[in-house]
């Protein structure tokens, strides 16, 4: 019976053995192929992901919304609930992206569709007569912040 490995190797009076470990070729090939495939996949994934990110950086322009809504952030108190009007086609991706990005940037203010609030945010995709747009909905133009962002106040009811 062989001595335990450590004792055998650490006893100077005995002849030292060197341990040679081999694996079946099937296992070596399998492990090597798995490693190489993974690394190939990592490089492949890097190339495609990097190209995609450079092609469509910030596709909904969320970072730019912080600049667009900066005047609203300073004009409207944090606890306010704002109404919301837009010229985007209802139900379209642009419509959803405009509303949700406004909610994100203006939080903790709440933004909700409609004009039933003291403050109403106008979020427009193209130039227009914003004062007339508001007036037709019972809103008074409070501040044209530029870049299609308009702040309205609800007209006092007569």
């Amino acid at each position: 019976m062989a001595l335990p490995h450590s004792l055998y190797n650490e006893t100077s009076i005995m002849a030292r053995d060197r341990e040679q470990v081999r694996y079946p070729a099937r296992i070596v090939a399998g492990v090597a192929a798995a490693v190489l495939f993974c690394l190939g996949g990592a490089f492949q994934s890097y190339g495609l992901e990097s190209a995609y990110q450079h092609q469509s950086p910030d596709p909904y322009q969320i970072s730019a919304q912080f600049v667009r809504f900066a005047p609203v952030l300073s004009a409207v108190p944090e606890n306010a609930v704002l109404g919301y009007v837009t010229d985007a086609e209802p139900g379209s991706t642009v419509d959803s992206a405009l509303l949700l990005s406004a909610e994100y940037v203006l939080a903790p203010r709440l933004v909700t569709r409609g004009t039933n609030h003291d403050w109403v945010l106008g979020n427009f995709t193209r130039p227009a007569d914003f004062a007339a747009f508001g007036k037709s909905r019972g809103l008074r133009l409070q501040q044209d912040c530029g870049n299609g962002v308009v702040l309205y106040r609800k007209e006092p009811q007569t």
Partner: protein
Amino acid sequence: MTGLIWVLEAVLLGCLLVYRWTDLRTVQPAWAAWLLIFGAGAAGGIGVTSCLFFVCGVLLGSPLAALVLELAAMAWLGYECLRRRAPVAQTSAETRPVALPWIAGGLLLALGIATAAMAIAWDLNAQGNWDAWAIWNLRARFLASPAGLAERAWSPVLGSFTHAEYPLLISAFVGRAWAFSHSVSTAVPAATSYVFFLALIALAAGGVTVLRGPTLGLLAALSLASAPPLLREVPAQYADVPLAAYIAGAILFALLDRPILAGILAGFAAWTKDEGLLFLLLFLAATAIFRRRTALATCAGALPAAAFVAAFKLLLARGNGSLLSSSLPGASHRIFDVSRYGTALAAFGREFIGMASGWYHPILPLAILAVALRFERERRRDMAFSFAILAALLLGYFGIYILTANDIVWQLQTSLSRLLVQVWPALILAGFAGLHAPEAAAIVTRVAESRVRRKARA
């Protein structure tokens, strides 16, 4: 950037908790023990601090109390860990891993490549993808806000797109770091997602090493670190990678016979996403069937987070309808619509194929190793346990698609790829856990050194 300090503090607190309260430090080899402590500690620490902030900072209105409690706990745990010396590690059986330094080098290289790709996304798309700013980070901004505005995070006014009924682990954690640092830095949600990715890799490497040896442990981690769909989701800043980490972690710790830890991670899965709630129920059911001896301990581990979810859903967010509740009207009609099954099945097949990046599909490494190493009969029970949970989870997702009142094509297109990412790591780990360990096939010959020298001289 000070927000990052609070991300790291949560990770450290979690690692101290795991080190102090579990016996993972005694696991062999030691590097696998440290990986498991990091993996469980990072995921658990984020979960614990998220819950603590939600109670103290949001419900009681005192973020300072949460901060003080965390720091006090960390100081005490640090002292405890230093005071109590780690038990002497047991001598492990001699293992002969196959080309371990090469695989470890490959893993580090893959992690470096993955991180470089993510860095491009962090730079060019700092706010993350749609759901990041429309759901998770939006709600984090509410939770971080002062003066009692935090309850807006689950206000029905937010609308159906924002899913105010979703659980709050990720949002509360990000909000916590923003509140503690008094700044809303995009680095916090990006780092949170990345920490979960690293935790997942660490859990895979450490867990499979303990189960099946270091060669398969590192290969499992490598196959996840190079999986394109997983890598794509990390910089998106969604809750799917955290959920994937909790699902994989819970199953791994169940296989490692650590039922309390498994239960805790399964509970946090439920506090992360609604799909995690389904996972928790299936996980507990599978534990009761396959691992009855550990069922009570698993339930005990899951109880605190499950209670959190129940309280949130039933008391706070009860005004918001869920995807399931909104799907119930007209469900009987949709169940019998055969075309929906065809649409969903085709989408599942398409998405599975679409997980590839160019020529590389992330199933390839496991497929190659399954051919080379073959599955081990003695691991059938473990594999049955893991695959039963994951198959039932996928079946549950399939059922939701059949039931949903939303346009099924839109629903599949916008969510299915992410649902597959949630279960993919656990599927891969379950597969690796069932393989023959290559170390067992080592052919060892002892040659007298003098003979070797003679041979070399000749």
